């Protein structure tokens, strides 16, 4: 006896536990791989998982095997011209390995590579940042939902009753139910009229009259409104369209900003981006980098190019102000700005920064966060910004020295923002 079973609806993630155990076991290696990959990853890419390569030797499962020595004789198929006793040169090691390499598209053959899902990636990524679990889910949560009308339902609460639709149904039902009776009734009535013209037996007449009154009663008892007729408005949740926001990322790319500092900055910007995408459905990014001159650049250039030379912070602020005026009027846009710098600035420039911030930027932005990365000492810029901070509660500044501090700093910076918004 043969059975057919449809298993497609059964849980498909039978391997989840095994997968988690694998990731847990090789956490150190995977985190290292993530750290390497973060340079390549786009800031705005918060939707995808990550391709991970870890060295195969680390995860090998050894078994007793033969080494490559001694005598070996094997049978192969597809002989074309060989005869017994013929001698062939050994294939060169390099040739053999280059052949297999070509199929690997640049990955080393000694790597074990696989894909992490988005959740797994952030789990590990945020762990590095010492992100508390609660906040993490909040950040990664889907946007808020709003209930919107989508058709009708047969059940519901009285307050959601749709009167016109219910009455339409009632009308239809009444017509449908009454029609046959009415047809019969009119027939009987013509019959009755005929009988009354030509005299007939009383019994027949009374019977006819009885039938007519019974039919009339039937018509009368068809209810005006039945439970069947009731229709309620039906609502389904839909992502709530939120207002738009723009985020200015400003980074110092002068000679003193090395790769480590940029890595910290990038992680910071990434978290910030996550935070904002949580609150806003539509968010635009503007990247401004500066040394002595500021330019608006693509994300690519923002993180990967390195320039030399001195630092004039005000150039970036002027640039931001210009862009704000041209493209992002504060009436339509929520403006956020985050600035990362190592604190080096040309001394005479700092007062100017203060003026620009106070007069042309701070009145229009929701929030301005300044992040000083591994400063050698706090210099004139810090002093200037302190003055801004006193005037505006939506201005925040922090210093940061290592990766672990990024999240606490971000939290500190945005604790205010949350209260400010609410």
């Amino acid at each position, binding site marked *: 006896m043969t059975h057919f079973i449809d298993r497609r609806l059964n849980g498909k993630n039978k391997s989840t536990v095994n997968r988690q155990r694998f990731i847990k076991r090789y956490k150190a290696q995977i985190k290292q791989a993530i750290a390497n990959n973060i340079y390549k990853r786009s800031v705005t890419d918060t939707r995808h998982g990550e391709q991970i390569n870890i060295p195969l030797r680390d995860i090998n499962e050894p078994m007793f095997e033969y080494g490559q020595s001694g005598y070996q*004789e094997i049978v192969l198929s597809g002989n074309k011209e060989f005869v017994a006793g013929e001698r062939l040169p050994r294939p060169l090691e390099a040739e053999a390995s280059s052949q297999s390499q070509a199929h690997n598209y640049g990955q080393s053959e000694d790597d074990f590579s696989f894909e992490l899902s988005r959740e797994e990636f952030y789990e590990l990524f945020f762990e590095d940042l010492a992100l508390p679990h609660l906040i993490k889910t909040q950040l990664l949560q889907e946007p808020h939902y709003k209930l919107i009308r989508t058709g009708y339902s047969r059940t519901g609460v009285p307050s959601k009753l749709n009167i016109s639709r219910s009455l339409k149904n009632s009308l239809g039902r009444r017509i449908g139910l009454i029609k046959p009776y009415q047809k019969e009734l009119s027939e009987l009535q013509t019959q009755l009229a005929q009988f009354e013209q030509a005299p007939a037996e009383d019994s027949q007449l009374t019977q006819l009259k009885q039938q007519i009154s019974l039919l009339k009663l039937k018509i009368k008892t068809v209810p005006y409104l039945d439970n069947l007729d009731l229709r309620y408005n039906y609502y389904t949740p839909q992502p709530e369209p939120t207002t738009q926001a723009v985020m200015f990322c400003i980074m110092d790319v002068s000679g003193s900003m090395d790769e480590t500092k940029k890595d910290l900055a990038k992680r910071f910007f990434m978290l910030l981006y996550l935070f904002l995408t949580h609150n806003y459905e539509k968010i635009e990014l503007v990247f401004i980098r500066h040394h002595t001159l500021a330019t608006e650049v693509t994300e690519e250039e923002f993180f990967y190019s390195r320039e030399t030379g001195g630092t004039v912070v005000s150039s970036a602020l002027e640039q931001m102000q210009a862009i704000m005026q041209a493209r992002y009027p504060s009436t339509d846009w929520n403006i956020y700005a985050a600035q990362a710098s190592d604190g080096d600035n040309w001394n005479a420039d700092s007062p100017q920064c203060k003026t620009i911030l106070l007069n042309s930027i701070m009145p229009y932005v929701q929030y301005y966060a300044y992040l000083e990365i591994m400063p050698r000492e706090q210099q004139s810029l810090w002093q200037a910004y302190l003055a801004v901070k006193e005037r505006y509660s939506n201005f925040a500044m922090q210093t940061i020295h290592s990766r672990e501090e990024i999240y606490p700093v971000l939290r500190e910076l945005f604790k205010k923002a949350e209260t400010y918004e609410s």
Partner: protein
Amino acid sequence: MKAEQIISHTSEWNFESLKEFEWHIGQVATEYGLDTFPNQLEIINSEQMMDAYASVGMPIGYYHWSFGKQFLSIEKNYRRGQMGLAYEMVINSNPCITYLLEENTAVMQAIVIAHACYGHNAFFKNNYLFKTWTHPEAIIDYLLFARHYITECEEKYGLTQVEDLLDSCHALMNYGVDRYQHPPPLSAAQERQRQREREAYLQTQINILWSTLPQKSSPKLKERPRFPLEPQENILYFIEKNAPLLEPWQREIVRIIRKLAQYFYPQRQTKVMNEGWATFWHYTLLNTLYERGQLSDAFMLEFLQHHTQVIFQPSFDKPYYNGINPYTLGNNIFNDLRRICEYPTPEDKNWFPEIAGNDWLTTLDFAMRNFKDESFIAQYLSPKVIRDMRLFALADDEREPELIVTAIHNEAGYEAIRQILAKQYDLSQIEPNIQVYEAKLKDDRSLTLRYVQHAGKSLAKNTLEVLKHVYRLWGFTVRLETVDKRGKLLKTYQCPE
């Protein structure tokens, strides 16, 4: 004979058409005398198929990171299109469970039904290795028992402890097999009962007082006979019974892995036969239906395309050559056996006097029941198959500067190719022959394994890594000696060094 109705089908399968195909194929299979377990067909999606792959075909597996690793790598390859999934997977159980991939077309499902539900199924039920070593009635129960037990241990003794133990057992899995003795049948209930009794018994044997006795200097060692008296091939079994420090639950887990290794052992030994048999039968069954007018031409065209893909054998000089395709080799041998029976040539009468001209069904049935890959090839690889596949033998001797072609498909080479190819499927030639040589239980408790050198081959570089796993199980010094045929010691690995 009355004209049969064509089995209607569209390119998409549905449950009605599956049932109809299954019924008709089943009818033909019965006519040919295929003896099978009842079938259970399960439709699954690609994700579930990857799960099934990752758990090496165990429908219920215990948890271990290595299966996760397997899954991740399969998933990556599949998503990138570097690898297709098999059309089916079949479990040696009673009823015989076959997984059908939902993405298959109706024709592919019919092939799978013929291939797995009748081909493999009949093989599982009747081949002597499967009959001796596996218990299809009990395997699902046993897997369930294994998973529960291991999960219980994880809760009691911690994840890491259990994981380490499993790692070590996996490393020795190929050496957890009895090659000659017959195992007793097991059922889940009995197994659980016996496990409790074993644990209780071992617990009563522990007497704390003994450990307080002062250690005496050991008496003369040489007088004692070596233990074990004969070398032991089943290393995991030896460890389960004799490792000095293992806790009862650890012994039980070693036992579980050993039992599973034993369950999979016949499959590793009958790849060519099993696939060849299933391929031969899916071809024969569907062709019979076609000859009776029950399958349309369109069906046959699609079927033949899949069939030729399955038995495609690239020649050795192609970049994607990956050894001899077991489907092709097995199918060719079974096909040729039928030909030898039905239309014997003088050459066949010379090579196979006892079967040439016999009834082909009984001959094939006998071959399927009584052989494994190695003996099957040694017995039945015919000169015609060697010629058709253009097989040749190549020797790689480290003392020679070049490779040497030792035999090709001619009168002088047939016998040699047969022998070499047969050996190629002999597991003891593929895996180094390593056995337990001595356990000094009354002395320093060290364990000595011995590898008897074969064809001048040494052990691979990772040998010491495996030895660390043996050490973890045994708990005291472990040595692995390489000796030549005369017993001369060539090399010793030791852990800890």
